[in-house]
């Protein structure tokens, strides 16, 4: 059901959500950039629609609002483990269509790929999504190539208009609100881009043979394995367990899980000192193949949603989309044709 909604009506709707939900959206953090005093767009709680940044891409993805960077799994004593209570409120999250596609990847990793994850499930089941229509593509986006420029599983979609917002609201309960506050009904479909400046073509015959290609070597030196590309990625799911001990004997404390990066040292270290993928080029290959090959082998579709955040954040100006476009030559090189 579609409506024309003005800012005041939108704010009323947001106010009504407050009791049950925290609302998260891309906001401008003044001086929050990692490079300088520049502003940074990342996820934060909002009260009013004017807080939402529509005209820029968020540096970090919505994942921050959904999966805590560090999450206490339980508190332990020698005999007992206590799980912290779930968040009091559910969450409403504003995101774009590439990111809504990323939610499906997160679901398939945390709810599938082995047994269901308790902590993810208890947050996920209380999240509602607001799709932000995209009227134009940002430079590094390649959603069209990845097929993530359209999205359908949203509770509400909002397109920015000069005189307010065009809203599509499949969520019945929410639609009632807009009807009652006198919003004019109109057919609304999500704004979407049909062309990006950045285009990616993956070779049809991509296989693990491409491991042997020379393209990876370049990243041994260029990549400084800082892991930023993983932390901004809406589809990266890896974490590491960390114990925090309250007592000297290590028997009372808490266990947390924290976001981890396959680019950073220590990711594969085993007890006794063994480690795998020591070179940064090998790590790059591992990450790239996970995003556009391995994950697909297990789930039938690509993990990467083409949001371009990894390109935007890399301090060494390494372009992930460019690497994807080099895979074809890589395959030619190893197959000798």
């Amino acid at each position: 059901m579609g409506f024309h909604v003005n800012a005041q009506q939108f704010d009323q709707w947001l106010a009504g959500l407050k009791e049950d939900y925290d609302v998260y959206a891309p906001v401008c953090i003044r001086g929050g950039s990692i490079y300088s005093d520049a502003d940074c767009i990342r996820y934060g709680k909002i009260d009013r629609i004017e807080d939402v940044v529509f005209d820029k891409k968020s540096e970090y993805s919505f994942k921050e609002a959904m999966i805590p960077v560090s999450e206490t799994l339980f508190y332990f004593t020698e005999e007992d483990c206590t799980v912290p209570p779930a968040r009091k409120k559910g969450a409403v999250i504003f995101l774009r269509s590439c990111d809504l596609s990323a939610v499906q990847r997160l679901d398939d990793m945390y709810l599938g790929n082995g047994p269901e994850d308790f902590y993810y499930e208890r947050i996920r089941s209380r999240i509602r999504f607001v799709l932000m229509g995209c009227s134009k593509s940002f430079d590094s986006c390649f959603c069209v190539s990845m097929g993530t420029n359209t999205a359908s599983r949203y509770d509400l979609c909002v397109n920015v208009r000069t005189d307010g917002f065009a809203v599509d609201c499949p969520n019945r309960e929410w639609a009632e609100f807009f009807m009652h506050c006198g919003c004019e009904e109109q057919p609304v479909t999500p704004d979407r881009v049909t062309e990006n400046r950045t285009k990616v073509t993956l070779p049809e015959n991509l296989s693990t043979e491409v491991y042997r290609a020379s393209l990876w070597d370049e990243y041994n030196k260029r990549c400084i394995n800082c892991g930023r590309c993983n932390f901004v990625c809406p589809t990266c799911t890896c974490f590491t367990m960390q114990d925090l001990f309250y007592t000297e004997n290590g028997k009372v404390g808490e266990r947390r899980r924290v976001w981890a990066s396959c680019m950073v040292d220590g990711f594969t270290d085993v007890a006794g000192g063994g480690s795998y993928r020591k070179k940064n080029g090998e790590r790059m290959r591992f990450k790239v193949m996970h995003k556009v090959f391995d994950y697909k082998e297990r789930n039938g579709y690509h993990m990467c949603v083409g949001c371009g955040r990894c390109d935007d954040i890399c301090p060494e100006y390494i372009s992930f989309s460019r690497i994807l476009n080099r895979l074809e030559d890589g395959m030619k090189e190893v197959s000798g044709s």
Partner: protein
Amino acid sequence: MTQNRYLPFPSRILDVIKHTDIEYTFRMEFSGEVKPGQFFEVSIPKYGEAPISVSGIGENYVDLTIRRVGKVTNEVFEHYTGDTLLMRGPYGNGFDLDNYRGKELVIIAGGTGVSPVRGVISWFGDHPEERKGMTIITGFKSEKDILFKEDFRRWRNQMNVILTLDAGEETEDHKIGLVTKFIPDLELADVSLAQAIVVGPPAMMRFSVQGLLARGFKEENIWVSHERKMCCGLGKCGHCKIGDTYVCLDGPVFNYTKGKTLID
């Protein structure tokens, strides 16, 4: 509601067996389904969780052989009989004994790699009617690194045992040289049907498999078990992933036809 699989349970330490200065077996209270080659995530006070493979299985216990390496597994050595440890599991596929029933069996294991196959060796040792000829080739660095000495005494009466050390003097009990040295001379009735299991450090596994293939073993009759960093055991943390494979879910035991495709 979704079960919280991250929650460990307290398990009592029933016994502690000291093998070497740095390797101990902890006999932990546990009753439930478990197979050799599977692993538990054991909470080690002052360190955190570590994946430890099952080195023995009994009526109401599992043996976990823990090596004191780095700071990772040191703290557990403060624990003794009667004390408890938090653990969860078992995880992974483990060895399926049916793959080896009625066949000639060769097991090659190096160092702590003996732990995951100890259950397989013992079972086929105690049940000779369930298999044909059986040889184990086990390698340790030196005499003081030998694990499961008691077991070896029993195994020597049950099967052909080759125990070899990297260096030192040859004695009646052990030979000198890498495990690979003994592969060409393996006596087998029919190599095309014989099954082999290889567990140990990466280089040792690679060369052992090469040796077995050269000896005439078929790829599909070779089984390997991989050690990787594993934080969750549940297919979530990503640390154990190799290509499209999650060692904690799909392994750690792989048939070599699959194992050979795993490239880090």
